[in-house]
């Protein structure tokens, strides 16, 4: 009796989980299958759940019409330069907050955390005006420099650096190390998992960022992928075959990254929640 009850509850659990998983998958399925349909088939109602034939050339067409080569190149450039900045500034900043003694350290750190609390939309207008003063509107600077410092990442890395005992530093000093050498030769190699976490957040953030690049860019030449895709939507408003193909192209790189490093990514997000 007990055994049957146990199996029944397991059955219900799997049923609910599978139902949920199907709901999560269906929009992706629908995007990909729409992307390979003919325009005529795509607007049939009731829709065909499996494409009658696969028009792979839709991807090439979307790639060309949406100028995707340009957008992806721009986005990769923005994402990796931003990442370099984020890593550099976070490593140095976290070290200062975790291992150096100086007056006003805690006040500075707390006020930085306070600034982190201010929601992004508050920055749109003044950020735009500051960039205008600098003459940076519609330049890569505007898309990269403001995002090369992340207080959140400094916070994560500082927690990690603090967990590494100071005795290590004292031993390193005896061996003739200064702060700079100690940081790069000993601390950084010990922090690889945390740095991977930070890199993942940074890359995903750059790839998906929208509102800021929407506001600070005007020309196709420097536009990153999400803004390009959004304008493609406005141009093509009802051509869902091309739009689905373009959307598929835009999500593939990130989904590849996700499948390559999913354990790392999921545990990064989980950790960020517990520590935050």
């Amino acid at each position: 009796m007990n055994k049957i009850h146990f199996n029944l509850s397991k059955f219900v659990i799997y049923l609910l989980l599978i139902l949920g998983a199907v709901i999560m998958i269906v929009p992706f399925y629908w995007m990909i299958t729409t992307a390979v349909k003919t325009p005529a088939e795509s607007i049939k109602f009731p829709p065909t759940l499996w494409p009658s034939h696969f028009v792979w050339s839709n991807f090439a067409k979307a790639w060309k019409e949406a100028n995707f080569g340009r957008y992806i190149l721009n986005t990769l450039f923005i994402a990796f330069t931003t990442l370099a900045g984020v890593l550099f500034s976070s490593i140095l900043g976290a070290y200062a907050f975790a291992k150096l003694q100086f007056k006003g350290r805690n006040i500075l750190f707390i006020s930085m955390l306070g600034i982190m609390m201010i929601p992004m939309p508050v920055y749109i207008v003044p950020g735009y005006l500051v960039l205008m003063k600098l003459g940076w509107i519609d330049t890569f600077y505007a898309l990269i420099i403001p995002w090369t410092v992340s207080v959140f990442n400094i916070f994560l890395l500082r927690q990690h650096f603090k967990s590494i005992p100071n005795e290590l530093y004292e031993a390193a000093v005896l061996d003739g190390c200064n702060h700079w050498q100690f940081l790069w030769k000993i601390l950084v190699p010990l922090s690889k998992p945390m740095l991977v976490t930070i890199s993942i957040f940074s890359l995903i953030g750059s790839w998906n960022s929208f509102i800021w690049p929407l506001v600070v860019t005007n020309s196709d030449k420097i536009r990153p992928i999400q803004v390009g895709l959004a304008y493609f939507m406005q141009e093509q408003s009802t051509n869902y075959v091309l739009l689905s193909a373009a959307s598929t192209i835009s999500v593939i790189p990130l989904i590849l990254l996700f499948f390559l490093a999913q354990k790392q990514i999921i545990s990064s997000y989980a950790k960020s929640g517990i520590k935050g």
Partner: protein
Amino acid sequence: MHRRDWLVALLFLLPVIVVILVFRFIPILYAFVISFYKWGITGPTKFIWFSNYIKIIHDAVFWRALGNTFYYSLFSVPLNFVIALFIAILLNQKVKGLGVFRTIYFLPVVTSIIAVSIVFKWIYHPRMGLLNFVLNFLHLPTQTWLEESRGIFQMMTGGHFPIKGPSLALMSLVFMSVWKGLGYNVVIFLAGLQNIPDYYYDAARIDGANRWQSFWNVTFPLLSPVSFYVLLMTTITSFQVFAPVWMMTGPPPGGPLGTTNVVVYYLYENAFTYIRYGYASALAFVLFMIILTLTLIQRNVTEKKVYYE
């Protein structure tokens, strides 16, 4: 450590300080100043004291946008919270294929909101959309989703309920946000659940607690710091919704009949369509104050109930 430390610290913190100063601190001060000016395309024209803020109080469109934002938050946050917790609990029952399920639920989190908006606009299509096809198949009434301006309470009661409620168009955005944001909270909850040691449950069982009792008396209190974090983050995020409105509603965005206009979209529209930087900055500060107040309220309410180990 050495006395020379402050010099090293200054050098190490230089990039951080410069970027924060120029792109965070100064803009915030600047926004505060701008919010007291009439400030259009030609720059500041007049110092007008609190006029922008007073105008906000009398701005009917702002109040509607704020109401819509509250509705969006009021529906998306609890739905997301409850479903995510439920799925995390199911996943925590030592199921096979945990990794596969977790991956599937998490996939929308790393997918961009722009691609998701395109796909959902297509799924919600009133004539050719997948959702109406499914409803049709199940012999349920089809809907016009993003084009429906009537409130959901109005629709469900045939107009006999005194409150109209959020429009079905706004609810369509709510459902999409739950779909997209769920996986993040599932992962956070799951990590929290896995942190609860088994011996608490063993002890509860020995004391004769059933599953429901051990959920309320063991899981819920021990999970409360995580729940608090999830609640806070989901609320803050929900108040900043923008891209789906820009992408999926209208034209003009915020439609039909302004029922999906939210505060951040209204701010964007004021700044970059009407070029009213002063007014938009004042709106930004009002939004900030609202989010700050909500954060403090949630903290005070939950503080007594959150159980920290």
